[in-house]
């Protein structure tokens, strides 16, 4: 039987190889009857069109391996891959699992070499800004294998907003911020010969080198010399190696010197005095930080006298609160104010705040829909809340709803089970529902009932605040 000759295009001809495999498998041609040739003259390939044979079903792993190995520069790559395909289709479907098989091993080494070259291209390409162009960059690079197309997505994903060109001896590519175009092989002269940041970069490279750890072998293993000529920083290497020993000796010989400056005692003292001392200072810190949740136009701070006896902690500001920059001014806040009044609590004397200081919402059309903060988000705000309470030093802290309980204790607790007096972190506390819960109830009867229960809670809160909590002398019996 005569040898069957397959001619493929120069470079990584994945389509050509795929077509050839379909044809060869359809004709049941074993690898020993096939030779693969590569047509090095581009353009001459053409009229020898092969009819499409039916697709061949191969395991995903094999297909992935083929995609990588066709990029290898070894002319034998197609023959080796066809041997692999042939064996996989003829009784050794799991052949790739036998990593110790000589063919699998060899192809795996080739794939690894291609992946490494790709990785090194992603790492070692150095763009230079093109003269007279604001945001246009070009680079010259010499890959070992035919990896230009395989390397492209990385650069597009990363430098989407730049206009860049990569020139290589095996082809070129340009991204113009919208589309990628491949072009013919290029020469080094077509790339810019310098960039204004290269000297700074070389200076950086020199400075991060530690002469006491000099180890050129380890460097060359990861950054082989063949890449050096296209990397501006490598010009520093010989000098760095040469002077390393001397630099270290000097450091070792140099005796410890007395500090030239006096000990900056006052600065050190001041350094530890960073804690906010007033609510105003704390609020300034919160405002400067900006939201830790998505949404929110401004921070909504707590409100009330600095040393209020009762602190009410809600969940987070709502739409109205966010716009006005004040807590409890929306519908739920109004309901709370009404209930407080009925229970005999002077709103002006209480301190009202929220666990989360920003309105987290989702935009739906023109409406901003309240989005419940996650446990993690509540905890982001916790250090501020703790500081706030530390500054107010209340006698009693009231948690309105589950989020407040989570914020105050660090643990999620259902309201139904914990309603009433409770220890909230270091504070004597009381747990009740959030007034917005009352607003959400569907029918009037339950609403009224729930409101009464809420009112009862507020009356007890009022009484508790009057009592001496430390001696436990309560006007009402504790549960």
């Amino acid at each position, binding site marked *: 039987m005569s040898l069957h000759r397959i001619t493929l295009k120069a470079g990584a001809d994945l389509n050509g190889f795929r077509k050839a495999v379909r044809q060869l498998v359809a004709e049941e041609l074993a690898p020993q009857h096939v030779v693969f040739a590569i047509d090095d003259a581009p353009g001459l390939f053409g009229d020898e069109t092969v009819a499409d044979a039916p697709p061949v079903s191969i395991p995903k792993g094999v297909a992935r391996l083929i995609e990588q190995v066709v990029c290898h520069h070894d002319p034998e790559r197609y023959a080796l891959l066809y041997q692999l395909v042939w064996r996989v289709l003829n009784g050794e479907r799991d052949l790739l699992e036998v990593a110790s098989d000589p063919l699998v091993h060899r192809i795996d080494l080739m794939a690894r070499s291609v992946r490494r070259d790709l990785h090194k291209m992603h790492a070692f390409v150095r763009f230079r800004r093109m003269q007279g162009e604001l945001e246009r960059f070009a680079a010259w690079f010499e890959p070992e294998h035919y990896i230009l197309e395989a390397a492209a997505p990385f650069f597009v994903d990363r430098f989407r907003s730049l206009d860049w060109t990569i020139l290589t001896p095996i082809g070129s590519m340009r991204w113009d911020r919208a589309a990628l175009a491949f072009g013919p092989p290029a020469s080094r002269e077509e790339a810019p010969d310098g960039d204004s940041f290269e000297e700074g970069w070389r200076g*950086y490279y020199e400075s*991060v080198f530690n002469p006491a750890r000099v180890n050129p072998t380890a460097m060359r293993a990861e*950054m082989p010399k063949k890449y050096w000529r296209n990397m501006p920083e490598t010009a520093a290497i010989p000098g760095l190696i040469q002077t390393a020993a001397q630099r*270290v000796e000097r450091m070792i010989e*140099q005796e*410890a010197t007395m500090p030239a400056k006096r000990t900056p005692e006052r600065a050190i003292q001041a350094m530890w005095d960073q804690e906010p001392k007033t609510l105003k200072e704390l609020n300034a810190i919160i405002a400067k930080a900006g939201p*830790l949740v998505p949404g929110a136009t401004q921070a909504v701070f707590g409100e009330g006298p600095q040393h209020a006896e009762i602190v009410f902690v809600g969940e987070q500001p709502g739409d109205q609160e966010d716009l006005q920059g004040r807590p409890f001014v929306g519908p739920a806040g109004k309901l709370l104010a009404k209930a407080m009044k009925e229970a005999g609590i002077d709103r002006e004397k209480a301190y009202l705040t929220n666990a989360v200081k920003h309105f987290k919402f989702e935009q739906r059309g023109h409406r901003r829909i309240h989005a419940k903060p996650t446990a993690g988000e509540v*905890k*982001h705000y916790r250090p*501020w809340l703790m500081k706030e309470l530390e500054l107010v030093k209340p006698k009693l802290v009231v948690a309105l709803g589950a989020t407040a309980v989570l914020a105050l204790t660090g643990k999620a607790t259902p309201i139904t089970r914990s309603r009433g007096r409770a220890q909230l972190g270091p504070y004597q506390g009381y747990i009740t529902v959030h007034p917005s819960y009352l607003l959400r109830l569907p029918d009037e009867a339950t609403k009224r009932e729930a409101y009464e229960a809420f009112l009862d809670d507020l009356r007890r809160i009022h009484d508790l605040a009057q009592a001496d909590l430390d001696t436990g002398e309560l006007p009402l019996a504790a549960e």
Partner: protein
Amino acid sequence: MDEKLSKKLRILADAAKYDASCSSSGAPKRKADVGGLGSTVGTGICHAYTPDGRCVSLLKILLTNYCLFDCAYCVNRRSSNVKRAKFSVDEVVTLTVEFYKRNYIEGLFLSSGIIRSPDYTMEQMILVAKKLRRDHGFRGYIHLKTIPEASPWLIEEAGLWADRLSINLELPTERSLEQLAPEKDGASIETAMAQMFERIEEAREERRHFSPAGQTTQMIVGADESTDADVLRTSAKLYGHYDMRRVYYSAFSPIPDSSAILPLKSPPLMRESRLYQADWLLRYYGFDVDEIASSGEKGMLDLDVDPKLAWALKNRHRFPVDVNRAEREMLLRVPGLGARAVDKIVVARRHTMLRLEDVARLTSGLKRAKPFLVTTDHHPKARLDKLDLRERLIEKPEQLSLFA
């Protein structure tokens, strides 16, 4: 790039280089938005290597090397006479963006000396990250060093902008910290690590961004009297309690204008390298600290052979191991067989019986493995018990330091 900025960059890169951490790994894969800049790839990329063999992945700099702390091992301690400089927030942002556009770096690793106050310093660092993300649509990698003495809310903020946070423990015991780093306090370091750990876990569960590449730390080796066992015990605790992604070990190295309380000598590079190997055994090979410590003497690892080989030499009764039959756990204990080679062996032997030449294709450590394993055509027999086995397996030291 103007000369003043270049000069500052030299000073503040030099000052940052004693931090061994270089990785840009672990961030979720991201791509640049339209008009934005930057992406992340899971494993990170090393864009260059310096002649010490170390990877240059991130622009690793200090915001400033002025510092009010006086840690004896640190080149930037307040009593050191090194040259000082300070970047503005905008300068760091510009450097990061311009270096990134030229494909020099994966992103930024920002640390700082403590100036004015821990809070002030931390706020400035967060501001850099925020500006990169918000003003430049920067989606590359950001690693921020956390200052444990800063207020807790700053950690909450930092993780929203950074891919990785880290606090360097620097010294493995509280006693050494007291001696060499008078302003530092082990308890506040651990509190901050615990806070980061909790937030990182919660955010992962809630699918939100908060330091998605986790946290890391570093310990200096050779500046104090701690043994390798001390160091590894601390590491095991850090991995266990705070889910550290990496503990870096940094051989204490001569620094310009060093402190009088630390005698200068060549950095213990071999010790550092053995600690990394032991660390690997701890995390991926099912060893515990006591087993590793028992492979050496008096809490110090054997410098001549790697810790797995050292353990095997002291536990010869557990060998030889049959590659065609042994459990994965035991294969992992064979010197010269890495976790990947073991996985390949386990899969391949479902289809075939392995000979020695097959194993040779799966590992580059066959020389070390051979006395400890059995294949269809190989058995070490009495060779395993020979007294000179250790001597024969000692690798000729490569050029590891100038002082060898």
